[in-house]
């Protein structure tokens, strides 16, 4: 049974609820005791460096990989007990493209519809609608091998929608897309959300996450570091603005002397602050900076601050 609680008179349904979820591959702890809840109608993001455990989590939700331990309910059901019932109502965009090369674009959608027991007439109409939805109607009769990478990604999104899912699980849906196609997908996802769909997605594009997600988690090493709305996270972990100054010994010693916390990124020094005016005043009065730049703090600053700057192997 799914849980309900009252908020401002409206009944909010929990679509996914996970408690102390774990997934191990031998020695590797891919998901290491995470808890989260996704509410009906929200876009919920999973961010994190390579190997953080995002895909492992998506696969557990999508009922294709069993959890090692912990609890999870998807649409009020347990993936271990009712996988077919859950999968009937979800749509999945996997990280790895797995379209059927033996079929055309249309054929892929039509063949997939049969796995969901969709009657042929309805499937035909739906497939055509979806090709239009992702703007691939011109490629209808082209075999998928002849599509570009971005077109394949769009077709996979269409495929994930064939069964009118209540919940969408998108693992890096916009990977390899050009800016136009990404904007198209964003717009489509917003449309789906407006229709009441719940969307769980992972992405490495932090601007995308900030734009799309109502709430998100940042994961690292199988654990959730923080949960919240993009704006709240930025405010809480970085502040309002970032002042960037060209790195010189003079600037650094000056910042230390004035007790201003900073971070060195490449050849620039970054200072996160609530009020850039104050920082800039101090800089110009005491530190004789070369180049100074002020910009709003972003999710990327939060991400880098929490997960560090080292490359993951």
């Amino acid at each position: 049974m799914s849980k309900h609680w009252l908020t401002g008179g409206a009944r909010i349904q929990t679509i996914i609820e996970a408690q102390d979820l774990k997934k191990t591959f031998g020695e590797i702890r891919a998901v290491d005791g995470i808890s989260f809840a996704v509410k009906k109608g929200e876009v919920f993001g999973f961010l994190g460096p390579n190997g953080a455990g995002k895909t492992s989590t998506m696969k557990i939700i999508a009922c294709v990989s069993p959890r090692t331990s912990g609890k999870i309910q998807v649409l009020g059901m347990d993936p271990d007990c009712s996988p077919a019932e859950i999968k009937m109502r979800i749509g999945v965009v996997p990280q790895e493209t797995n379209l059927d090369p033996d079929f055309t674009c249309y054929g892929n959608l039509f063949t997939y519809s049969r796995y969901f027991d969709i009657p042929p007439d309805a499937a035909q109409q739906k497939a055509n609608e979806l090709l239009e939805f992702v703007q691939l109607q011109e490629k209808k009769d082209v075999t998928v091998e002849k599509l570009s990478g971005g077109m394949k990604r769009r077709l996979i999104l269409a495929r994930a929608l064939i069964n009118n899912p209540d919940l969408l699980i998108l693992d890096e849906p916009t990977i390899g897309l050009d800016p136009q196609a990404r904007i198209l997908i964003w717009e489509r996802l917003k449309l789906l959300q407006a229709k009441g769909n719940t969307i769980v997605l992972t992405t490495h594009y932090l601007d995308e996450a900030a734009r799309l997600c109502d709430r998100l988690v940042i994961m690292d090493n199988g654990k959730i570091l923080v949960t919240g709305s993009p704006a709240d996270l930025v405010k809480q972990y970085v502040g309002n603005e970032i002042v960037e100054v060209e790195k010189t010994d003079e600037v650094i010693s000056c910042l230390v002397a004035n007790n201003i916390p900073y971070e060195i990124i490449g050849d620039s020094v970054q200072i996160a602050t609530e009020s850039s005016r104050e920082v800039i005043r101090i800089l110009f009065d005491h530190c004789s900076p070369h180049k100074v730049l002020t910009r709003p703090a972003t999710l990327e600053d939060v991400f880098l601050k929490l997960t560090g700057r080292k490359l993951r192997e």
Partner: protein
Amino acid sequence: MHPFLSLPRISKRAWKVWHRNLVVFLRTWKVNFFPPLVEAFLYLFAIGMGIGTYVKDIGGIPYINFIAPAILAIAVMNSAFFECTYGSYVRMYYQKSFDAMIATPLSIEDVIAGELLWGATRSVIYVIIMLPVLAAFGVISFPASLLVIPLAFLGGLMFAGIAMCFTAITPSIDTLNYPSFLLITPMMLFSGTFFPLTLLPVLFQDIALAVLPLTHLVAVMRMLTLPAISGLLILHVIWITLVTAIFCIISINLMRKRLII
């Protein structure tokens, strides 16, 4: 009971996987219908009429009539075996089709069961195309030979199950060559196909009957096409059925172990 022998839960959705493969097959039907025809002719000319000129008959049966059921049995074996080794491996590993399917209400058990059913269906199709050729040469008798069609399904399922076990454990597509060379080729020669089992030393006869599935399939095929039906037919069919059940069950469990991680 050993976990690999536990009964997998299969739903009728397995037929959707079968259907997908059928659609792909039928789309290239011209290419697919050619090999069985050619193969039937090749065997009949090269072995039947070539060797048949020297070996007139075996135990009173014209040589070409003796090998006709073997041609069918070998076709059953090859079509199901190669479909469920190379064919299934390509769909599983290169095309990621199984991954895509298990993201739908299909379970991995349904997917593998569908592949096995399809492998058996390939055998049936092959045999149905070969039968008219053999009939035209007058080397099989009707109506008993029509029973070869359901038998092709059973025999096909047996070889599909055996093949899928190899597919489930093979580290790469290259290592699938081993079962083809070490199992399928010897079986094709030593299962009472082109010469009677009784020509082999007794020990080898026993081994062939005990472990070479093709032996039993050829025996039943021959009883049906000559026809020369005896009570032994039941025993052969029971052997085939048991082996089919065991390998199909094991293959599904092995595949689950390989793919659900």
